[in-house]
């Protein structure tokens, strides 16, 4: 059934990804890409003259999704030394060469939009095209092995460099001879913003990489499927560690798993593939939380209602915990005049945003098999943190996540905003300052009224999940 399919909310459903307005580029994202001017021009000039980029890769690898199965893949190298120094200053516990903050979104919570855009616009990504399409195969796509067979020596080196960087635990000096550098900043609702693009001729990793033993194991075991590799080897053993433990070299962060998965380093040998970063982000969030959710189903249910509240970058969250077996709904409302609800000339959005538009996806006790196509990546990002919170607190609950986005969220920065904000709201567990206890559901729902500008009645109308649990009786009533 899904949401209505009329043309009147296309920006909200598309969010710059599906090109539902028929234009070749999203007009709203083009508008926001003016922000690219944040990186100084002199530097571009210098690089364009020398045709060389040298810097410590965070490490970072990006795989683009436009034109799939013709994918753009390549390492990322910082181009602005001043900015890097600034980044290092912000993270004083690390050595001078550490540029990890430029790519690891787990470190960004609490930073301003400008800071994040500064990080990203000083990180150039290289692009070289690889065709992963295979018309002869039933799946239509080549595995990494088949892609590698057809590569030229130079392409092979570029791919090897990308994969080597994807495995590295530490920032690593990397040098690239380039043919051109294009200043730009691309926004995407799923992945963090992307900086300038360069076309590499050669890429040389100057230093030796350092690999986390778990990563080493997962990459070298070509009989291990990607789901098991991510969950059992990379994610689960680190569950109790904090993001800050990254520098102790024990923890494998989500961003690192995304790099490994997207550069075709995980999975059984015959199934390894190059995966666009955006898809890999959703895949990692989905894999980790789906498996962990199976485990919390044996945990005791909470016996009171709880709400948690928090906000970041004009993204407002209320997390509602209801006694019952694990199940989950996320609702999202882009308030009037936020990014996806502004009036765009030539796009049929006009006038339709006077009534708040709330989109939702949910799953009942048995989980979901179809992609959460209304909320998309944010659904899985938030679910990951919520399940993790319940797991660590040894509880299960029905959870409803409300997210209201206001105009202060200037550009979409990626699903990490949702993931990290939810993580932060829940980090102190039950009993944190952001938490309230309630006796009844109606009492708990008052928290929405207190914190959101969109009236509660619209949220209740939009929620499919709350409707089910408010009306569905259980057999317990007859089995006392």
């Amino acid at each position, binding site marked *: 059934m899904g949401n209505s399919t009329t043309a009147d909310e296309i920006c909200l459903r598309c969010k710059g990804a599906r090109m539902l307005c028929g234009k070749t580029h999203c007009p709203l994202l083009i508008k926001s890409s003016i922000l690219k001017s944040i990186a100084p021009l002199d530097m571009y000039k210098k690089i364009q003259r020398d045709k060389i980029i040298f810097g410590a890769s965070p490490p970072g690898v990006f795989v683009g999704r436009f034109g799939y199965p013709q994918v753009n893949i390549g390492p990322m190298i910082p181009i602005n030394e001043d900015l890097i120094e600034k980044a290092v200053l912000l993270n004083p516990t690390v050595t001078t060469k550490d540029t990890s903050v430029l790519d690891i979104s787990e470190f960004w919570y609490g930073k301003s939009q400008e800071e994040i855009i500064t990080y990203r616009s000083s990180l150039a990504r290289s692009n070289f095209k690889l065709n992963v399409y295979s018309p002869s195969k039933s799946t239509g796509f080549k595995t990494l092995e088949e892609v590698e067979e057809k590569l030229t020596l130079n392409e092979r080196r570029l791919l090897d460099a990308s994969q080597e960087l994807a495995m590295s635990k530490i920032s690593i000096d990397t040098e690239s001879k380039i043919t051109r550098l294009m200043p730009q900043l691309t926004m995407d609702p799923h992945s963090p913003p992307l900086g300038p693009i360069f076309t590499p001729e050669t890429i040389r990793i100057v230093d030796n990489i350092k690999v986390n033993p778990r990563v080493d194991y997962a990459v070298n075991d070509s009989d291990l499927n990607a789901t098991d590799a991510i969950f059992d080897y990379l994610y689960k053993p680190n569950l109790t560690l904090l993001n800050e433990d990254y520098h102790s070299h024990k923890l494998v962060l989500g961003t690192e798993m995304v790099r490994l998965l997207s550069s075709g380093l995980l999975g059984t040998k015959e199934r390894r593939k190059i995966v666009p970063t955006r898809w890999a982000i959703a895949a990692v969030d989905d894999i980790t939380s789906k498996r962990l959710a199976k485990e919390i189903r*044996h945990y005791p249910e909470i016996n009171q209602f709880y709400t948690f509240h928090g906000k970041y970058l004009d993204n407002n969250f209320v997390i509602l915990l209801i006694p*019952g077996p694990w199940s989950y709904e996320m609702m999202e409302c882009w308030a009037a005049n936020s990014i996806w609800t502004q009036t765009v000339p030539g796009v049929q959005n006009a006038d339709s945003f006077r009534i708040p538009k709330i989109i939702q996806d949910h799953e009942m006790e048995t989980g979901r098999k179809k992609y959460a196509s209304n909320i998309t990546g944010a659904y899985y990002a938030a679910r990951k943190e919520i399940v993790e919170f319940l797991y660590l607190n040894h509880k299960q609950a029905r959870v409803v996540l409300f997210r209201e986005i206001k105009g202060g969220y200037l550009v979409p920065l990626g699903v990490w905003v949702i993931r990290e904000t939810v993580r932060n709201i829940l980090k102190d567990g039950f009993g944190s300052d952001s938490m309230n206890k309630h006796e009844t559901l109606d009492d708990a729902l008052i928290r929405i009224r207190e914190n959101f500008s969109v009236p509660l009645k619209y949220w209740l109308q939009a929620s499919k999940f709350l409707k089910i649990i408010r*009306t569905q*009786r259980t*057999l317990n009533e*007859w089995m006392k």
Partner: protein
Amino acid sequence: MFELTMNDSRAIQGVFDAVAAIIDETEINFNPNGISLTSIDAGRVCLISLNLDKEDFDAYKCDKEEKIGLNIEDLVKILKRSSVNDSIVFQYADTSNKLVILMQSSEGKKIRKFSITLKDISMPPIKPESLEKISYNNSVSLPIGYLQEAIKDADIYNDTVIIRMNDQSLVFRSEGNVGDTECIMDKEDTMLTNFVASDDAEGTFALKFLNHMLKVSSVPNVTQVEVSVSTDQPLKASFNIMGASSIKYYLAPRIEDEDEEY
């Protein structure tokens, strides 16, 4: 220790397929009189109670009661590998923690052996006895096809269906933004049997679970379902399968959606 044989592989497959729609793991009771299983879905909305009588097996050897925990999804995956002419054997020895499933072709020349590791399952506490005590004022036996069609109709409009029964008819009603639908089965319809109605009963039920129940129709020769309704009570649906065996469901109703003001 037990060893049971059923020549009709489709029947046993259909039975567990229906169970798997409601629950993913449960404890199964193998006893000298047959196999039984009672379990409830994670949301505690639908209870399934299965009784396979030993008469319906082609060979049945079980000297004492054994309770074994199984992942039903895995069991179904294995049973789906059987072909129409296979006979299925369940074997269990006290000393092992595995259930062995043999698939034997009708000529008896080819045997496939599968084993499935038993699981320790913490069963949610349920008291099916109190459900069985409910006395229903209205019940009727109707062809499964009738129920199937009524549910498909309702699915166009909503995720729930209102089931109403009085001394004249059984009615399935559904309404939504699109409009509404009604399916009226008159008591004079010769396809309806055992029509008993002593008051007006009405209840709203989730289509999802009614659809799960209909999976029983993949068991060969199951044509009728007996539906019992009473206002403010769970819906009871029972299917007689194979001969002496049965599958019963209890489904909790939904309450009318009060549009409260906020």
